[in-house]
């Protein structure tokens, strides 16, 4: 229950943000929801969040009619963990999709965004361009009305499991990945993989020739599929126009995930001599020199700009259709990307800001002005926020909290820690022994490494207000704060942890 003062505050904010007033929601009044997740998009590479390059002008335009969350964190550093948290509202130590290609615990299969909104009368749509996230969508397919496969819009593809072993796709695709991966990656079935590659190569060459002028660096690729983001955006536009109301769509686009192959007009956009702040090499460095990382950073920024252009096209089209007046549009990512400390991309046990800071922008139906939220938020907040947007009651099981009220007013966030983690080295059904976890509380961030050979029980403590680049480790200078944060981290981890298979 709001106090009179809180009510007046909310009313004032609502007016300022250009949010439409709203009464109780009937079935026909329920707003549509469209979640757009762009894979591996780091908030640290977006001008809206302080990056010096203008990588996302269309997102900046969209921000003018959205709520911008300035300190939003993914729960993990790669697709599976981050996406599973977006879809379940749980941290990885609870949903347990800890490794690439993993799924959440069987007992949680029915506890997801699609189930929640399908139960509230929504027509649900699930699409992931990334096969790792696609495995999760497959797990939730019982609650997804329109489940689209990435290959259905690819220009060239050689998928096997979803054609032959659909009933057991979640397991079959993992064996397919091991058996039929490219010959250079040592597939388990060398000849079969080589044969498939040979068969595909003719098609691939034809398509590459066809698009050479538009994509001089080559077409974007993903798990053997060649694609153009344009086709997926066109499809999304079509779905938004044709899905029954109300709908909830989760659309997970591959760009700007590597390889960074944008359209021609975005190549060379950032020949500006920009050099990021030099940072010391980390224990988990991969032997990448800074010149290599800077070059890749520039390519990544170009690829982001390509994704932004397509995102802008989608938003403009939705606007023209009038869909921005009756649809919540959420722009976010599953994790970030990094080009520093000798580390390239995001398959890393580290949890530095570039790899866990994600964008989060939420446009409420009819919103015409910008709002800014500076409190730390997490990927686990998405599900409770969308539940609130759909007019559903608070969820006891979700580990996040609603960020906005049903009309799009930012809610007063309770003082709480936010967590990120990487437990690739720990078992799904066993205790979490090997991994990295981080806790963010106020301006402070503690990163804790445990169970690694030669890097066990290591702490890094940063004051992000004073040291946003995470260069000054305070763990020895402020042991009391380190211990306090570590106890809180351990308390939450242990509450979710289990010693054996449940």
């Amino acid at each position, binding site marked *: 229950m709001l106090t009179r003062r809180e009510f007046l505050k909310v009313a004032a904010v609502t007016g300022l943000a250009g949010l439409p007033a709203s009464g109780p929601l009937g079935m026909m009044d329920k707003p549509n929801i469209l979640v757009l997740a762009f894979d591996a998009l780091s908030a640290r590479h977006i001008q809206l969040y302080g990056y010096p390059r203008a990588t996302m002008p269309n997102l900046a335009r969209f921000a003018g009619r959205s709520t911008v969350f300035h300190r939003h964190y993914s729960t993990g550093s790669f697709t599976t963990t981050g996406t599973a948290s977006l879809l379940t509202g749980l941290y990885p130590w609870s949903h347990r999709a800890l490794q690439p290609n993993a799924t959440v615990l069987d007992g949680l299969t029915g506890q997801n965004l699609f189930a929640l909104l399908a139960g509230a009368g929504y027509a649900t749509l699930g699409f992931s361009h990334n096969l790792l996230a696609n495995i999760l969508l497959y797990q939730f397919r019982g609650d997804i009305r329109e489940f689209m496969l990435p290959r259905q819009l690819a220009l060239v593809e050689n998928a096997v499991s979803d054609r032959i*072993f*659909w009933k057991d796709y979640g*397991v079959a695709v993992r*064996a397919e990945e091991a*058996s039929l991966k490219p010959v250079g990656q040592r597939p*388990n*079935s060398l*000849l*079969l993989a080589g044969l498939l590659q040979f068969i595909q190569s003719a098609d691939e060459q034809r398509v590459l020739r066809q698009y050479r002028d538009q994509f001089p660096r080559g077409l974007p690729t993903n798990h053997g599929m060649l694609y153009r983001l344009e086709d997926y955006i066109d499809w999304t536009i079509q779905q938004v126009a044709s899905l029954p109301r109300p709908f909830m769509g989760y659309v997970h686009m591959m760009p700007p995930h590597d390889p960074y192959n944008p359209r021609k007009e975005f190549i060379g956009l950032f020949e500006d001599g920009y050099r990021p702040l030099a940072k010391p090499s980390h224990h988990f460095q991969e032997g990448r020199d800074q010149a290599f990382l800077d070059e890749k950073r520039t390519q990544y920024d170009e690829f982001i700009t390509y994704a932004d252009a397509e995102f802008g096209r989608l938003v403009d089209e939705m606007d023209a259709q009038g869909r921005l007046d009756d649809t919540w549009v959420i722009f976010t990512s599953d994790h970030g990307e990094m080009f520093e400390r000798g580390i390239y991309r995001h398959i890393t046990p580290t949890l530095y800001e570039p790899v866990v800071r994600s964008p989060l922008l939420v446009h409420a139906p009819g919103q015409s002005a910008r709002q800014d939220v500076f409190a730390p938020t997490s990927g686990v907040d998405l599900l409770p926020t969308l539940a609130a947007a759909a007019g559903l009651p608070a969820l006891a099981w979700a580990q996040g909290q609603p960020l906005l009220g049903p009309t799009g007013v930012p809610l007063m966030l309770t003082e709480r820690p936010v967590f990120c983690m990487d437990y690739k080295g720990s*078992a799904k059904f066993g205790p979490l022994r090997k991994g990295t976890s981080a806790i963010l509380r106020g301006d402070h961030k503690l990163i804790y490494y445990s169970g690694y050979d030669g890097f066990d029980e290591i702490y890094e403590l940063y004051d992000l207000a004073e040291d946003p680049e995470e260069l000054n480790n305070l763990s020895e200078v402020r042991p009391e704060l380190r211990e306090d944060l570590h106890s809180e981290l351990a308390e939450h981890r242990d509450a979710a942890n289990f010693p054996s298979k449940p």
Partner: protein
Amino acid sequence: MLAITAFAIHSWTIFNMLVDVPAWILQMNLGELTGAISYSLVYALAETFLVMAGLLAIGFLIPARVRKDNFLLWATLFFLWACGLALAVFQDPTLTFRKQWLARVFVFTYFPLAGGLSLWPALKRGLAWLAERLSLLGWLYLGLDAAGLLIVIIRNL
């Protein structure tokens, strides 16, 4: 011939699966793990039949008197050599220098050895002895494939 082919192909598959299985154990329950291994075996079985089809085609092209004497031994030698080459190639993560170098080694060693089998009875006897034993393992692998195929069918019912 089938057993020798199965042996060579499955040796490669199982050797490489040793890398995948520990990662699978971290994220799969027993049923899923059995399923994933079964799919890998089914792919190996498909690969075995594919190679067998190729060998049969070659067999039809080769004159009967030549085929009768040495074809099995040539195939055994080919698989052993090819497996060794593949393992050696993939030790080099860049797959650049060694790939071409070892391909030449293969071509320049396999054909003289295969051609010299008749002239070198000890090698021929040794290879025949080896082929006999390896074929036992090959049949064992084919038995595992049959179980894998059954599991895959059940999982997809």
